[in-house]
C-alpha cells in the first residue's frame, strides 16, 4: 500500500511546490557592487556576457541590424550595462532570440535580453525584469502637409484637431497636457486613427514613441514625428529580460539603476532617440 502511495505523494509534493516556486520573490542583490563584479557573476559562458535581441533588430533601437556595433539606443544601453558589470566590449556576445521566445517560460540562451520589452505583470510570471531603462514617451505624428508638422511647442498644438486610441496614455496626454481648444477624436484602435490621419480628418495623432517610429517609418508614407510630449501619467516601462529567478537579476537591475541616476540613460536617449529620428522635445 505504502509503495503505491509513494509516487502519488511525490507527485503531490511536486505539484504543491510548483506554484510556490513562482511566488518566491527574486532575491535582492547583495548590497554593494562587490558581489556584482565580473568574476563573481555566473553567466552562460564564464567571463563573457551573452546578450539577446531579435532579428532583425530595428532602428532607432539598433543600427543596421548590427547590435554588436554599439550604435542605436538599446545597443548602447546593453554595452553600458555590460560596462557597469565589468565586461569589456570584447566580452559581450550577442544571440538572436525571437521576441515571443524571450518572454516565454523555459531555458534562456542569453544572460539578459534587450528588445523593447514592456514590464508587465503577466510577463513577470515567466521571466525576471531589470529596473526600467526607458520610460515610453507620448509623441505627436502628423502628415508632412499638416499645419502642425512644424510645431515646436505644445501650445502650437492647441488649435489642432488631435486623435488618439481610447483608454490610452496617449489620450490622457491630449486632455491633460495639450488641452486643445476642440474636442479630441477618439478611436477604437490605432489603425482607425491612422486612417483618419491619412484622410486628413485629424491634424495629428498621439501615440507612444516606439509606435510613432514604426508608423512613420513603415506604415505611413507622408507622415513625420512632430515631437515628443512631456511625460504624463503612468508611462509604459521597458526593462531588460532575464531568466526567471536568474542570479543576475539583482546585479543587472543595480547597473540599470546606476545608469539612470548618473544621467547616462538620459544622455543615451538624447543621442539615439531624439536626434536620430528627429523626435524633438515639445516644450
Amino acid at each position, binding site marked *: 500500500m505504502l509503495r503505491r502511495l509513494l509516487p502519488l505523494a511525490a507527485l503531490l509534493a511536486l505539484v504543491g511546490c510548483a506554484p510556490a516556486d513562482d511566488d518566491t520573490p527574486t532575491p535582492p542583490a547583495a548590497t554593494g557592487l562587490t558581489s556584482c563584479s565580473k568574476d563573481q557573476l555566473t553567466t552562460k559562458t564564464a567571463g563573457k556576457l551573452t546578450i539577446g535581441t531579435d532579428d532583425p533588430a530595428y532602428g532607432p533601437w539598433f543600427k543596421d541590424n548590427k547590435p554588436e556595433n554599439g550604435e542605436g539606443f538599446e545597443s548602447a544601453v546593453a554595452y553600458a550595462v555590460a560596462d557597469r558589470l565589468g565586461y569589456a566590449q570584447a566580452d559581450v556576445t550577442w544571440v538572436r532570440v525571437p521576441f515571443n521566445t524571450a518572454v516565454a517560460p523555459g531555458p534562456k540562451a542569453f544572460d539578459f535580453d534587450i528588445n523593447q520589452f514592456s514590464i508587465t505583470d503577466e510577463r513577470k510570471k515567466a521571466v525576471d525584469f531589470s529596473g526600467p531603462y526607458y520610460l515610453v514617451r507620448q509623441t505627436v505624428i502628423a502628415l508632412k502637409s499638416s499645419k502642425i508638422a512644424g510645431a515646436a511647442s505644445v501650445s502650437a498644438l492647441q488649435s489642432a484637431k488631435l486623435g488618439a486610441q*481610447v*483608454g490610452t496614455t496617449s489620450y*490622457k496626454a491630449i486632455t491633460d497636457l495639450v488641452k486643445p481648444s476642440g*474636442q479630441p477624436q*477618439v*478611436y477604437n484602435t490605432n489603425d*482607425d486613427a491612422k486612417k*483618419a490621419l491619412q484622410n*486628413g*480628418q485629424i491634424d495629428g495623432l498621439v501615440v507612444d514613441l516606439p509606435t510613432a517610429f514604426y508608423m512613420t517609418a513603415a506604415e505611413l508614407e507622408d507622415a513625420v514625428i512632430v515631437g515628443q510630449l512631456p511625460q504624463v501619467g503612468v508611462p509604459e516601462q521597458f526593462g531588460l529580460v532575464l531568466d526567471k529567478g536568474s542570479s543576475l537579476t539583482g546585479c543587472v537591475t543595480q547597473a540599470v539603476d546606476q545608469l539612470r541616476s548618473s544621467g547616462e540613460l538620459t544622455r543615451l536617449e538624447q543621442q539615439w532617440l531624439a536626434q536620430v529620428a528627429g523626435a524633438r522635445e515639445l516644450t
Partner: protein
Amino acid sequence: MSLSSAQLDRLAYRRRQTLLSVLVAAASTLVLGVLLVVAVTGAPGWDRVRESFLDPTVARESLPDVLRGLWLNIRLLFFCALGALALGLVVALLRTLRGPVFFPVRMLATGYTYTFRGLPLIIVLYVMTLGLPGLRLQGMPSTLVLGGIALVITYSGYLAEVFRAGIESVHPSQLAAARSLGLTYRQTMRFVVLPQAVRRVAPPLLNDTVALQKDVGLVSLAGPIDAVRAAQIHTAETFNYTPYIVAGVLFVLLAAPLIAVTDWVTLRAARRQS
C-alpha cells in the same frame, strides 16, 4: 338624473373590486421587489459589484462628460430620424410603383432594402466615415455628417419595409374606389393610401426610431465622443464601470418619452380598430 339603488350598489361593488385589485397588485410588486433586492444584495459578490458599478463619486465625476456626449446623440438622433423616415418613405413608394416601365426603379428600391438591411451598420459606418474621406474629394462633409448618412441609409432600409407593409395593407378596393372617383395614382396615394398606411404602421416606425437612438452613438468609432464613448473613457481612467450605468440611465430617460408615445399610439390604434 338619479341612479337606482341597484346601480349604486353595482358602482360601489366595482369600486371595491378596483381597490382590491390595486392592493393585490401593490402587495405582489412589493414582495417581488423585496425578493429581488434580497437576492442581489445578498449575493456574495454584491459589495464588489456595487463598488465597481454603482459608485456615486465616479458617477458625479463622469456625468458632465457623459451629458456632453449625450448632446451629440440627441442631435444625431433628431436629424437621422427625420432623414431615415423621409428616405424610407421614398424607397417604399418607389417599390410600390406599378407598371412595367418602372421595373428598374422597383428593382433598385428592392435591392436597396435588401442590401442595407443585411449590411451590418458598423461596416456602412466604416466605409462612410473612414473610407469615403480617403478619396480626398473637394467638399467632403465632416465625419459627423458622414456618420449620419450611414445611419440614414441603414435605417431607411428598415423603415422602407415598414412603410411598404403599411401601403400594402390598404385594401385594393380603396384604390379602386379612389380611381373611380377620378383621382390620379399620385392623388390616390397622397389622399387615400398614405394617410391610412402611416397611421397603421406608426407603432413599428416609432419602434425603429427607438432602435436608431441606441445606434447613433456608433458614429463614435470614427472619432467623435458620444455618451457611451465618454463613459468608456472615464471607465478606462478609473477602472470603474459606473460611468456606463450613468450613460445607460440617461439613454433610458431619453427613450422613455418616445416609448410612451409608441405605446399610446398603439393603444389608440387598437381601440379604433375594435
